[in-house]
């Protein structure tokens, strides 16, 4: 028996060697109109020889067995098998298929036919991603993917954006619940590094992440390099990646060189952007206080003066502060190859000026990717990507450009910001800064250098067994500099300060796989993967803050009196072993099992090793019980169950002592015991997900439907549980709590008009609810953010939902009516919070329309977000200062609806005046603080024209020009700027706040693309 098996292996391995080989060339065309099919794959069955067709549809395969069978695949066409029969030229005409047999790239870059997958995933093509002309991939996904919530942090160039797939799964606000990012198998960081930019005294900001809308590192990618993105949503989809992809994964595939003619592509775009929606200023009352105009030396700050006169000048600083942003992008790529080697290389340069003066993002990228077939069995590939970025970001958050702008009086021109001697011109000196002056003088400059790449080896051991090894690296260094002069509010207490930081990140991955397939019986095939992954992630922050400048005007770290060192960093290592077995029964039943065991450096030794399995099933009914027919061309049911284990962040076990913040005290240093202590018996946490879905194609591609329902439960979360500080600690890292996310994802594709004029529609719809099903023992609430002096709180409670917002209500009588006091006004009940909203949308929907006729394509993406409440952190300043339109309602006598303390109806009247708006009353009631931020928007519209071949001649492969408008229309009940900009930056779960950062913009971009 054993001998026979060995013989079998030898026979299979040697099969190639015995056959006679030849070079096959040919052309792949459409059977419909004879046009060449570009980029079709031609594979020799069972031989692992493959080629793509070039621009003329030609292919060439060397060393093909004379008795082999060519298999041709092209998206949208029927797959075709043609025996070579010793011919050296084979012509292949494909007929359009009824059903798109999509191939998607899954974990570790493994391509799979979509029909075998037992889980949901969604693929987007380069074309689709470039429609919106975004420079950040996360933004480019907006409105297109079901199950995904995307938030921008600001409209500033290079500002971060965050993406959450299938909900927020953590009970901690500071945790990053974003997906894993993989580029051609290279895991790259999408971190938003915050650093530490606050002075030792004089700031009310609780943390640094609202101070600058730092880039998320996915913003480093050149969008033109991307061929496709596959969004792996569920735990089953990412089972092989395991814990790193516990929040899903974006599998990015870049453009590759292909055998044939060298092609050169050049893209150019130029865009302008402008402030879109802005709140209205108050123009009825002039500057002043208590109805009287104020003139210096009296403090001029408030807009509570007398009714404005005809002659009074008003400046609409909510708009006029902003300038027109401009951006320009060049991108050049070369690609090509021969039978054995391919290469792709690209260069790009982006320069973007934002709508706030002195805000800018520059990005230069360079890349080289190549593959080489060393011999029949071994292929080597490598790529290297280099980035050089510079982000100049305006200060946001507390004591920033934007908080000042909200306070600013429209009676003064905000752009008149300099005195003749070059100092700050500011009628409100000593209260707020001139925002324009601050933007000019106090940005944060971040300079980033990044390299990522890999080396990979693919070895065909036998025709049915392949080995692959990939070593990947991602490294970046971010040098940041922030200057705050002593003449700015934030700098006065400490005599001005400067922060210099160097942030360094490095990730290495070593991945080894064996992949193979074997028939078990005639109808049952086994496909298997075995793998090992080793990961090391290291980060470092080294910086220094210098305070109290000595020589005026010399803003250099050497010119400071007091120095405070900044140091941080972490190291994390992970070793994983995993396997997958997929059983394929005929062509309709596909059952996949996976298992992965990880060993993590961040867990206690005894709990370091943990295993987690998954199972998924795909059943293609149209290949079995319900044969394809005119109505139903494709129907698939699927279901999956998966568990993902997850380790802790580094250094969460035990307890440490750290230097006292602000120390040394004079010259005396001191340490204090850290407020967090970690459980010595910390366990891995587990997320469990069950998903069911259906995929269907109806009426000969007229309609395609995909629907998913999932339940994802994250339990035993590794969490810094807040504990009674009387224990000597404020938090305890342990395993606790359960969050259950349930969601529905719908995708609907329609092709209402086909033929020369085409119209296609893609709908997507998402609804996700994250419920706190179990809190840590004896803990009632966990507060993520308490903003505006406690007026708005983002916190969770058992039984509540993730994203719940709480605020203050009026004191109410037993009969539910507000109690009106002797002054005719209701008073706030501050002893308890009421739940008044949720920061997450009830549902999200997108509708992407594409119209095409000859060379013209028109695309319009409509997006709707229903529900989702937002706190405007800036508007409160405008209410208190009477600068926003609705504070015009003054000097009028009103009778507040409510009751007296004894329950009788209120008869007392009051006069609405500045006290009404300024006092902690109306401006602190939830109805003012927490707003519905539902919106409908035209996310983008693009018109492009591809010049006909007759016009461009043979030298050029294509010339395309296009124009894109972004955020062309926005409808929302939200009063402030576009509510999409997140106040606390990307990279946290702190959602539901906006208003103190650069507003989202509306833009127009002209795009020219030329191919040689």
């Amino acid at each position, binding site marked *: 028996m054993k001998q026979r098996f060995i013989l079998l292996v030898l026979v299979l391995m040697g099969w190639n060697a015995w056959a006679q080989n030849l070079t096959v060339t040919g052309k792949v065309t459409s059977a419909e109109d004879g046009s060449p099919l570009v980029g079709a794959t031609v594979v020799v069955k069972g031989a692992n020889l493959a080629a793509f067709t070039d621009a003329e549809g030609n292919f060439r395969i060397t060393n093909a067995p004379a008795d082999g069978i060519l298999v041709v695949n092209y998206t949208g066409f029927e797959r075709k098998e043609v025996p070579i029969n010793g011919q050296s030229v084979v012509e292949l005409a494909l007929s359009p298929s009824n059903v798109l047999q999509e191939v998607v790239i899954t974990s570790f870059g493994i391509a799979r036919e979509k029909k075998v997958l037992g889980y949901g995933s969604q693929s987007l093509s380069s074309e689709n991603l470039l429609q919106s002309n975004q420079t950040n991939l996360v933004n480019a996904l907006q409105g297109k993917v079901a199950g995904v919530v995307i938030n921008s942090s600001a409209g500033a160039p290079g500002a971060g954006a965050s993406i959450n797939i299938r909900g927020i799964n953590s009970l901690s606000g500071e945790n990053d619940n974003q997906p894993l990012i993989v580029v051609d198998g290279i895991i790259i960081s999408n971190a938003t590094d915050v650093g530490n930019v606050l002075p030792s*005294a*004089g700031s*009310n900001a609780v943390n640094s992440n609202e101070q600058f809308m730092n880039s998320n590192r996915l913003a480093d990618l050149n969008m033109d390099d991307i061929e496709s993105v596959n969004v792996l949503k569920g735990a089953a989809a990412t089972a092989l990646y395991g814990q790193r992809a516990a929040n899903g994964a974006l599998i990015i595939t870049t453009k590759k060189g292909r055998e044939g003619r060298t092609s050169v592509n050049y893209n150019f775009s130029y865009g302008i952007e402008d402030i879109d929606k802005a709140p209205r200023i108050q123009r009825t009352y002039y500057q002043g206080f208590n109805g009287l105009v104020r003139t210096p030396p009296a403090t001029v700050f408030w807009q509570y003066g007398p009714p404005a006169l005809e002659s009074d000048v008003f400046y609409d600083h909510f708009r006029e502060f902003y300038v027109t942003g401009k951006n320009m992008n060049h991108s050049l790529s070369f690609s090509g190859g021969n039978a054995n080697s391919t290469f792709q290389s690209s260069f790009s340069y982006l320069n973007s000026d934002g709508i706030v003066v002195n805000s800018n993002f520059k990005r230069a990228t360079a890349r080289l990717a190549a593959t080489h077939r*060393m*011999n029949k069995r*071994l292929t080597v590939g490598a790529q290297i990507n280099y980035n050089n970025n510079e982000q100049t970001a305006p200060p946001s958050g507390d004591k920033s450009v934007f908080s000042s702008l909200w306070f600013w009086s429209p009676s003064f021109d905000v752009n008149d910001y300099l005195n003749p001697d070059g100092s700050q011109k500011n009628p409100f000196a*000593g*209260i707020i800064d001139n925002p324009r002056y601050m933007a000019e003088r106090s940005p944060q400059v971040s300079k980033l250098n990044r390299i990522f790449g890999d080396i990979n*080896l693919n*070895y065909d051991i036998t025709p049915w067994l392949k080995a692959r090894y990939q070593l990947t690296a991602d490294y970046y260094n971010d040098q940041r500099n922030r200057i705050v002069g002593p003449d700015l*509010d934030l700098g*006065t*207490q*400490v005599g001005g300060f400067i922060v210099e930081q160097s942030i360094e990140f490095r990730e290495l991955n*070593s991945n*080894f796989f064996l992949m193979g397939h074997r028939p078990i019986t005639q109808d049952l095939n086994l496909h298997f993967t075995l793998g*090992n992954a*080793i990961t090391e992630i290291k980060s470092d922050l080294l910086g220094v803050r210098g*305070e109290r400048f000595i020589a005026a005007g010399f803003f250099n770290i050497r010119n400071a*009196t*007091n120095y405070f060192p900044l140091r941080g*960093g972490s190291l994390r*290592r992970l*070793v994983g072993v995993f396997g997958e077995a997929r059983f394929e029964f005929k062509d309709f039943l596909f059952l996949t099992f996976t298992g992965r065991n990880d060993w*993590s*450096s961040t867990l206690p030794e005894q709990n*370091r090793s943990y295993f987690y399995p998954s199972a998924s099933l795909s059943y293609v009914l149209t290949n079995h019980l319900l044969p394809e027919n005119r109505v139903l061309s494709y129907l698939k049911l699927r279901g999956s169950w998966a568990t993902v284990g997850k380790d802790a962040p*580094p*250094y969460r076990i035990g307890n*440490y*002592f*750290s230097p006292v913040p602000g*120390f040394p*005290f004079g*010259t*005396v240093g*001191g*340490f*204090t*015991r*850290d407020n967090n*202590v970690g459980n010595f018996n910390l366990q891995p946490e587990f997320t469990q997900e069950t998903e069911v879905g259906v995929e269907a194609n109806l009426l000969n591609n007229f309609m395609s439907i995909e629907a998913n329902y999932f339940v994802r439960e994250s339990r035993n979360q590794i969490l810094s549980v*807040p*504990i*009674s*500080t*009387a*224990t*000597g*600690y*404020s938090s*305890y890292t342990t395993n606790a709590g359960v969050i259950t996310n349930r969601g529905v994802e719908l995708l609907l594709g329609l092709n209402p008009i086909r033929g020369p004029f085409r119209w296609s529609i893609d709908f997507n719809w998402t609804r996700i609810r994250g419920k706190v099903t179990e809190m840590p*023992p*004896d*803990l009632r609430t*966990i*507060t993520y953010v308490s903003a505006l002096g406690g007026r708005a709180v983002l916190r969770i409670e058992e039984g509540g939902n993730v994203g719940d917002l709480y605020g203050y209500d009026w004191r109410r009588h037993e009969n539910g009516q507000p109690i009106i006091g002797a002054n005719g006004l209701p*008073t706030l009940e501050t002893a308890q919070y009421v739940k008044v909203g949720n920061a997450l949308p009830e549902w999200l929907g997108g509708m992407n329309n594409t119209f095409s006729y000859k060379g013209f394509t028109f695309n319009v993406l409509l997006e709707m977000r229903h529900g989702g409440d937002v706190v405007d952190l800036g508007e409160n300043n405008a209410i208190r200062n009477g600068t926003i339109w609705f504070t015009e309602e003054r000097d009028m006598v009103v009778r507040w609806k409510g009751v007296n303390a004894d329950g009788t109806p209120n008869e007392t009247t009051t006069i609405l005046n500045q006290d009404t708006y*300024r006092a*902690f009353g109306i401006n602190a009631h939830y109805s003012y603080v927490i707003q519905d931020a539902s919106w409908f928007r035209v996310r983008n519209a693009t018109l492009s024209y591809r010049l006909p071949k007759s016009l461009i001649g043979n030298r050029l492969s294509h010339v395309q020009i296009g124009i894109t408008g972004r955020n062309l229309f926005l409808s929302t009940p939200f009063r402030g700027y576009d509510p999409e900009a997140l106040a606390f930056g990307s990279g946290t779960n702190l959602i539901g706040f906006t208003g103190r950062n650069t507003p989202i913009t509306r833009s127009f971009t002209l795009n020219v693309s030329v191919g040689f």
Partner: protein
Amino acid sequence: MKHTIAHNLLYFIGAALVWSSCNSFLGEDTNIDPNRTSDAPLNTLAPTIMFYSAEATQKASVVVNSYVQHIGSVTAAGLDAQNRSTFAATWDDIYLNILPNANEIIKKATATNSPHYAGIAKVVLAYNLGLGTSLWENIPYSEADNQLTNLQPAYDPQESIYNAILRLLDEAIEALNSPTTVFKPGADDIVYKGDIAKWRKAAYSLKARYLLHLARKRGTGTYAEILDALSKGISSNSEDFQLIYNDRNLSRWHQVALANNTGNFTTNFSATFINLMNGTLQGVVDPRLPLHAFKTVAADSIYYGMRPGAATGSNVRYNNGTAFFGWQFALTAPLQMITYSECKFIEAEARMLQNGGSPTPEAYAAYQEGIRANMLKIGVSTTDISAFLSHPNIDVGAGNLTLSHVITEKYKALFLNPEAWNDLRRYDYRSDILPGLALPENHNPDLGGQWIQRGHYPDSEAARNADNVARNTKDLTAKMWIFE
């Protein structure tokens, strides 16, 4: 060629597998943070607890000294309207920054036979328990900082807290009396620069303060104990238990004044305090007034503070935006915890109470010395001091001294010191004890016209230690055990 590639591939795979199997790749130092230490020496923990004591005191006094009408909120119906406060920042300083580090010092000092460090830690701890119990009455101590043996530490009754304070002070005195200590506090002692005698005096003075609180419970014999403790306590301004900040580490009151320069007005002088200084109530202008307050309207002849709870009516500021800072708001101002001046007023009161409430010559001398000490500290010229002390309304004569005189002058000397709240509550906020004291305007309606007696427990405790909070929460107007 083929061989080399295959060989290299094998090498990579082999290296990866060896790498992963090696325990040092995942274990050993991998998960130990290189930027923090698991062990901090005594001389790095001592300055920490001293610093946070001053911080905790200031954070409490922002509220407490609004309740007692030293200062008031610049928005109407603020804290000086006796709205509830949880004193959360002080709570966190005591339980997160002081207690754990003090316990660590005591443990290390005991292990290394360094009683002077243990003594200092116990003095600091006793002071902070005193501060804590004055804010919330029952507070955690016996189950606090418990190495996580109990995630919901119980709150000890106030009586137990006072017993713990006195025990800690006695132990501190004993430790500080020790002739030998292996590790000696020196420059790391940011309060007394390693002068152990001064720490011992501070311990005695604190003992006197807390015995005075307890005297009504313990009986008249306590006054002798108080006087005995005072005789061994702080005996000059140079021995005050206080922390002096610097231009690198700004004092919080200095920061409050600086914030006034950036439009972030929070508090200002209360009329109750100013009226005791501007001649309105005493018939004599206190020479300390221009050192404390800046008059914004130069033409005004009189300083006015804000009417409590009303946020209006003042012509004063903590600072003038340029050179002038009120004494307590200057860069170099000390954050006072217990002072010589307070000790003299404790003595004056104790001697009178020992004498059935009637004055004695010693009490009178202590009263005068208390005023003089505070004036000297603040920088009043000796001429002005003599003039003030000899004014008939101040120099009332040994036979005419009343408790009101003592408490009034103590109240002035305790400006921005939270101990002032204990005095007012001990005397039931009586306006015949402190002239001019009246319920603020916009008085917190929850108090039903009663004076505030306590703080609420912090929200963090309500969320994380709910049962104990529920067990110990009382009405804001309910008197604490010590004042019953």
